[in-house]
């Protein structure tokens, strides 16, 4: 454990820690562009210069490992002057088109110019011109003039995905990022190059020109796109609702979690939030009158569902929950079934939709909470429920989220089964073919509209948080079920997701001892599960590079 001194403060760090990370631990920011903790050291931007006592000149911090007794200064006049010079070099050929650049507001050229530049520009000659608005693939747009050639994107494609689509072509100040001939930037993780691009060179084609970043609010959340549960930040646009065509969720960004996804998320998850604001959202309770869906209010709707639950015997009632639902939602259903003695409770789609995982983060199971449903003991006989319905033995079927008509089940058989159900209740956020057959529709809040927890496939319980208000009158799943239970005279559990989780952790052994506070921003393992780390990227690992 080398002990070194940075700006007069002592710190012990692990052997091999570089000076940027050592300084970061002390809360000292060493400005940098090319360095990224998830990638190999490039040493190209030359911005992270620090003074090391006994060294003749400032040295790059990224490629300098902490040594016992080292004395480092990050704020000497010489270092400040070097940073100012480096900022000038980075900017002389930059187009300075911030007013039309999507990166403005989160651009490290802007941030560092204000912190470390503030020189009088002297460049009066013609700047170098390079290609602009070049689509590199389905998600990423390149502006080569804005690029500072830090090579993070190139290293990402070499070292993380191992797909190697990008290179730096040409030499000198006419160098530019580009695709190797015959390649598109089309891998499962291409959106990450936009995140790690410190400037406006690589922008997100989905987010481009939608809303300025300073109008965005950030909420810590969990990607619901698969069983991994990558940690994300949800960026929502509340302040300029007239921008971006009413789209509230502007984008998802990966949120670092060493135990789950490190710095990355896949494109399936990143671009999978479109249904939050689309036309399939159900926003009002509905009932079917003479074949037509008619809006109703929650009081009438909940009363009717409670009535049905009372009217039928438990053997005539079945509930098909969903692995898209939170632990709290599923626990509420478990409680409802216990209260009414319902034993026909299941959660899996009859046939899981075919999806492929990959060799990194993306899981074939595209549901965020399959493990949670298993741990709550919701593993029921779906086929049995459907065949019982077909045989006319199910009078009340309450389906959450599923589209039974697109689940791989024979359509005719399923349609016939649903037709025999006297009361088909469907609850979910986005309508599907099954919704249209339901006698009752109870609209649920989308994942970004509510609080809750998912349990990932390795047993990590993670919190997601409401980033926007529910659309219309949609409610969280636990809230709908809780209200039904109140109508049935069951004791109240609570009015917040956390209340339900508290009850859940008391009654389900795997969750014992967990609280929202303990789960925090990084998640917590269920009882008995081993701690996890993010999987090794399939690309050429930084530490396995043939050359430094």
């Amino acid at each position, binding site marked *: 454990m080398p002990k070194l001194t940075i700006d007069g403060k002592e710190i012990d760090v692990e052997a091999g820690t570089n000076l940027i990370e050592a300084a970061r631990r002390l809360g000292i920011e060493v400005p940098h562009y090319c360095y990224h903790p998830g990638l190999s050291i490039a040493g190209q931007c030359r911005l992270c210069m620090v003074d090391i006592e006994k060294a003749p000149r400032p040295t790059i911090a990224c490629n300098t490992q902490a040594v016992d007794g080292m004395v480092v200064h990050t704020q000497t006049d010489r270092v400040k002057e070097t940073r100012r010079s*480096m900022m000038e070099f980075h900017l002389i050929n930059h187009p300075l088109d911030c007013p039309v650049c999507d990166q403005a507001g989160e651009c490290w050229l802007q941030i560092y110019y204000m912190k470390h530049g503030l020189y009088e520009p002297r460049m009066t000659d013609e700047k170098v011109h390079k290609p602009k608005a070049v689509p590199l693939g389905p998600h990423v747009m390149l502006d080569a003039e804005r690029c500072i*050639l830090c090579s993070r994107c190139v290293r990402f494609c070499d070292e993380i995905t191992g797909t190697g689509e990008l290179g730096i072509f040409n030499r000198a100040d006419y160098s530019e990022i580009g695709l190797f001939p015959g390649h598109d930037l089309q891998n499962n993780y291409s959106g990450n190059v936009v995140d790690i691009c410190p400037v406006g060179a690589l922008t997100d084609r989905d987010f481009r020109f939608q809303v300025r970043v300073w109008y965005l609010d950030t909420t810590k959340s969990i990607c619901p796109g698969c069983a991994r549960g990558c940690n994300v930040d949800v960026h929502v646009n509340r302040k300029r609702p007239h921008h971006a065509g009413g789209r509230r969720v502007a984008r998802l960004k990966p949120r670092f979690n060493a135990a789950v996804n490190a710095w990355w998320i896949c494109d399936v998850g990143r671009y999978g939030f479109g249904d939050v604001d689309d036309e399939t959202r159900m926003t009002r309770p509905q009932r079917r009158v003479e074949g037509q869906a008619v809006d109703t209010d929650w009081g009438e709707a909940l009363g009717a569902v409670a009535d049905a639950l009372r009217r039928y015997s438990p053997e005539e009632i079945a509930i098909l929950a969903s692995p898209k639902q939170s632990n709290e939602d599923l626990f509420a259903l478990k409680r409802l079934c216990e209260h009414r003695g319902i034993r026909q409770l299941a959660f899996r789609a009859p046939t899981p939709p075919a999806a492929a995982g990959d060799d990194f983060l993306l899981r074939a199971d595209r549901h965020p909470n399959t493990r949670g449903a298993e741990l709550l003991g919701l593993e029921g006989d779906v086929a049995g429920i459907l065949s019982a319905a077909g045989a006319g033995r199910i009078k009340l079927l309450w389906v959450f989220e599923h589209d039974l008509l697109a689940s791989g089940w024979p359509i005719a058989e399923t349609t016939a089964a649903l037709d025999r159900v006297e009361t088909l209740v469907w609850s979910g956020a986005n309508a599907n073919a099954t919704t249209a057959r339901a006698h009752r529709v109870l609209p649920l809040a989308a994942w970004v509209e509510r609080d809750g927890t998912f349990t990932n496939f390795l047993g990590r319980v993670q919190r997601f948080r409401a980033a926007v208000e529910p659309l219309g009158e949609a409610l969280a799943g636990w809230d709908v079920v809780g209200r039904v239970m109140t109508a049935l005279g069951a004791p109240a559990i609570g009015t917040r997701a956390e209340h339900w989780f508290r009850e859940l952790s008391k009654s389900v052994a795997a969750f014992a001892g967990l609280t929202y506070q303990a789960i925090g921003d990084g998640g917590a393992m269920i009882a008995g599960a081993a701690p996890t780390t993010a999987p090794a990227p399939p690309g050429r690992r930084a530490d396995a590079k043939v050359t430094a």
Partner: protein
Amino acid sequence: MAERVLMRNFDRASSHTLAVYREHGGYAGWDKARQMEPAALVEEVKQSNLRGLGGAGFPTGAKWSFIPKSHTGPVYLVVNADEGEPGTFKDRYLLEKDPHALIEGMLIAARAIRCALGFVYIRGEYVEPWRRFSAAVKEAYDAGLLGQGFDIVVHRGAGAYICGEETGLISSLEGKKGWPKVKPPFPAIKGAFAQPTIVNNVETLCCIPPIVTRGAAWFAGLGTKTQGGTRMYSVSGRVKRPAVYETSVSITLRQLIELAGGVSHSGRLKAVVPGGGSAPILTADEIDVVMDVDGLKSAGSMIGSAGVIVLDESASIPEALLVLARFYAHESCGQCTPCRESTGWIYKMVHRIVDGHGRKDDLDTIVDVARRGAGTTICAFYDGAVGPYISYIQKFRGEFEGLCRS
């Protein structure tokens, strides 16, 4: 002129063949070296005061001793034959006229550093040198000199100046873009293909056989106190007999110009670039300098690759700088920011000045920009460019100002 050591065979007919090389004592050094312990060879080279003749002037024996003793995997010897420094044309003669001297030098060096595989990276434009050297390698294989514990791979570059920088060369050799590597690690610790690697210049290795046959003391005695031997000076520009001259490193620049027949054209000396394009320029008053590593260093310039470019009174210094500035703006690899951005910027400013659209404050800007980037880059390329930028303007400011409009 001192005894010719490196060019001893140049005047012989078919000097590039194994037969002629052997006839005049070739491979005697190798015969002797193979009886010596590697450590003894390293020590012999240390004692000879041989310093790298590619540009940096690093003591060769010391460099060889940096290979980690504990290393058990392969060690590589890489020969830098990517001679690209403006004004330098010595290695091409060695490759063409005495290729076996390099092979013999490589055999001895390989034994000293316990290396079984050597790479020779030859500048792409050097077609004839490549042909001659490749033929010599084949002869050496046929004669059993190679392939008996040491092999040579000949690799041709594709025309980038930066591939003459030792780690840029290694990147290129590995099949990558010819970008210099961030140091540490240094090549002797982790070089080509991540193995310990010694990179030596052609001329440097050609000095090794005579050192082994005739002894370190003899070689050291040929030079100055801190640098042994002779070296090959490429003398070009405004001299009456431009050519490669081999002489002791103790010669002065004045003597060297006389050796090349004196100043041509106007006959009046204006300036000299003493060590290839990257060496800071010397004025006519500064030519009593000793042409070894330390002599040039104390004169504020550098011996570099010993490419001596002579400029007479009729030559334009701003135009000379324009040629170099264009070269650096074209050849910067673009990897790290100060070099990538300032070489282009400075070229634009110099170009504007030579075109008659300059301002006097451009001169201050050039010097300031050059200074700010100096010492901040991954490799020595930019420091090599800074030398001319600053020295040409400082020493000949009046000539530049005469071209400026304001």
